[in-house]
């Protein structure tokens, strides 16, 4: 219950406060979103698998976002930012897809 409340609070806060995203962070926001989605789908699948762990979820979410942003930041500095963000998106995209597929199998039994 508290978890669902947290989700709603997050969405409402994001919509109402409209935090001014600093220009430095802005290029990494899309990657952070993809990383966050990956963590969410991973947590959802773990929940359906019955092996959900709150600590793992929070830590994986934070580390996903930070590592993804860091890779893109490093790529920007090296001049291959576009290629590295493509790589990050591909890897996270594959994970999201297979996790979504697992969730689908759980929900629809198909």
């Amino acid at each position, binding site marked *: 219950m*508290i978890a669902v409340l*947290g989700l709603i609070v997050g969405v409402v*806060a*994001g919509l109402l406060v409209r935090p001014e995203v600093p220009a430095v962070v802005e290029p990494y926001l899309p990657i952070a979103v993809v990383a*966050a989605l990956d963590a969410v789908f991973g947590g959802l699948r773990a929940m359906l698998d019955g092996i*959900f762990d709150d600590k793992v979820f929070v830590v994986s979410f934070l580390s996903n976002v930070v590592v993804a942003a860091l890779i893109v930041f490093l790529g920007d500095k090296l001049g291959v930012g576009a290629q590295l963000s493509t790589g990050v998106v591909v890897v996270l995209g594959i994970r999201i897809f297979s996790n979504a597929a697992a969730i689908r199998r759980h929900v629809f039994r198909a």
Partner: protein
Amino acid sequence: MSLITNVMDHSLDDGYAEAAARRAAQGEAGGLPKTLRAKLGLAAGLVLTALVVTVGAAQARIAAPVVAKERQELIDRIDRETADADRLESDVDKLRDDVDTRRRAALRRSGGGSEADLVGVLSGASAVHGPGIKLVVNDAKEASAGGDGSNPRETSGFSDTGRVRDRDMQRVVNGLWASGAEAVSINGQRLTALSAIRAAGDAILVDNRPLVPPYTVLAVGDGQRLSTRFQDSADGLYLHALEENFGIRATISTEGDVRVPSAPSVIVRTAQPNAEKTEKGTS
């Protein structure tokens, strides 16, 4: 491929499996958190997740119109500046016409009369018409066929023959002057005492404006006589030799009324007329 296979196989964070194994070893039940602290931790994580996703979406929605707006602003600025430039150009044209009429009037007042018109005609400041000849010079057929960029190796540089060069046009124009032409234009560019015919790459430039073949030379002069004298002169023979040897196409025709435009601007910035009228030649 093993990398991708690895990503596919381990799509779920290994941490979950490890945590489940640990709990199983300790005899606890898996699944959703039971204690308040764990619940709060999960809620905090979800708040963060929702925040990141929402802010990302909001940012994308804000950024898209901003980019479009900036683009539109740039386009508007280009349009505005282009219109400004057009207006200024028409202003320049209008003022030039004004200066022209005033100069003519002033010269007439100071007793110039026909002399003023003569200066205008000779300097190229005023458009003239009269009997004359029309001379069309064009590259040889093969040269223009290769000039469409089908083979850059053949068209680059000055190696290929059959192409009209700047010095050919110089000789043609020189010959026309020598044969008694009074006003000459090439492709609508009036030649003045300050005009230069030169080459830049493959193009021939007259007063820094590139010309496109065929080169149409209009010369005002005593029609048939001008034509004959030119064709008999050394430069006429030179042109004939170009035709014979390199396939350059040249046609000369006598015209009853040739219209030669005025030069875009006749400006002398540094030269001052001398007190004792010595003649100075420009080549």
